[in-house]
């Protein structure tokens, strides 16, 4: 039995030890936003947040993060109102076929949570791990920059540490 808090709700399902988080989300829980692209940690299509950190769900055993809070693309809209990053991707042509988009949006959300006012260079550095085969990188960068402008009022989060 694997137990995780997914998008704020406790979920559990019977799953063998080798179940990857990506497959747990998609096949056990029916959350098909995260995609499998490469399966080896390179492309970012499977990106989710685990306790607020970017994770490749294709390299994560569901059992290994038992008790963690997982945030997927399905969980970032606020009661039907799209997250500012989601809205910016629509407004600024941040996607074409859409396969990479859930991963792009989760990565961009994590960036703005960490650094609400990134420079273009910081956006490129951070988003480097999310590949897009439709080569829509200009649209993606513009969307992230626009989302940052639209959420300017948020207080910056300092790197917290001991």
């Amino acid at each position: 039995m694997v137990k995780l808090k997914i998008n704020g709700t406790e979920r559990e399902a019977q799953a063998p030890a080798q179940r990857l988080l990506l497959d747990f989300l998609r096949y056990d829980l029916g959350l098909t936003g995260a995609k499998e692209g490469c399966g080896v940690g390179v492309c970012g299509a499977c990106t989710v947040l685990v306790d607020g950190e970017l994770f490749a769900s294709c390299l994560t055993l569901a059992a290994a993060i038992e008790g963690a809070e997982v945030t997927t693309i399905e969980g970032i809209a606020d009661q039907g109102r799209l997250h500012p990053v989601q809205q910016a991707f629509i407004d600024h042509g941040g996607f074409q076929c859409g396969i990479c988009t859930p991963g792009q949006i989760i990565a961009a959300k994590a960036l703005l949570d960490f650094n609400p006012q990134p420079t273009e260079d910081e956006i490129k550095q951070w988003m480097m791990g999310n590949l897009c085969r439709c080569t829509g990188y200009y649209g993606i960068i513009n969307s992230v920059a626009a989302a940052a402008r639209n959420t300017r009022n948020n207080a910056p989060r300092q790197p917290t540490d001991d």
Partner: protein
Amino acid sequence: MIDFEFHSPSSLDDALEMLERYGGDARLMAGGTALVLQMKQRFAQPAHIIGLRPLAQTGGLSAVQETDAAEPYVEETDADETPKSIRIGALCTLRRLEDHPLLRARIPLLADAVRRVATRRIRSMATIGGGLVNGDPSQDPPPALIALGASVELTSPSGTRICPVEQLFIDYYETDVRPNEALTAVLVPVPPADTRGAYLKFLPRTADDYATVSTAALVPRNPNNTCRDVRIVLGAAGATPIRARAAEDLLRGQELTDDAIRAAAATVPDAVDPLDDFRGSSDYKRQMAAVFTRRALTQALGYNKGTATP
């Protein structure tokens, strides 16, 4: 992936006890970025996996702290300065290290090398300890750790031993970590304040790739520009990270001129033994190891700051 049993230990002792009980059939898992991939590819087929993530909250296994060092990094360090080390719990993620104010302020060379690993997503999962035990000579943190004179703490049921990172690596993916040991901490001496360093990674393909070759250089600066000590360590240039001792010997005691640096770098192709692969031929990598050694030394010394290629 073949089937296996997953275990969640409640303490380090518990984990060590499980390692002992399941013997060669068991593997510890930290971030899982290397191990899950190796299991998917069937390079590793452990029957038991002992997940260390629950231990990251406890017992300093992921803390980053400044402590008094056992030995100074350079012998002539001013006597009135107590030498310090930074102790990094093995389960500390590379993401936490790259953002850590103490590490960035005190040992920027290591923060820089860590930041060059893959992508933010991989660094959020991968731990400093897991990367060291993985023993891939193309990884970025080991050359910097060896240049800094770092050691690892290895813990087994019978106690703890300290192993210099320079002696940890034996061959491709083979380390001196014994089957009943966990790597519990990395101890990094804080270099004197006037030390300059650089970590350069040659990335002709993509920005998130493994190094084609890489060089860590560390130079404690002297007021008269003579070299009192220097460490040069190459990554992705052989079965383990390689210290370029001939180059170091040529520079020690000398004035650090451009010519001296070129002469030292010219010894590097003979010191390394890189593989032929899709990142380049062995011979090409030998030459590039020399080029990146020269650039790393030049950048560390602060010449041509604007023109050094990262």
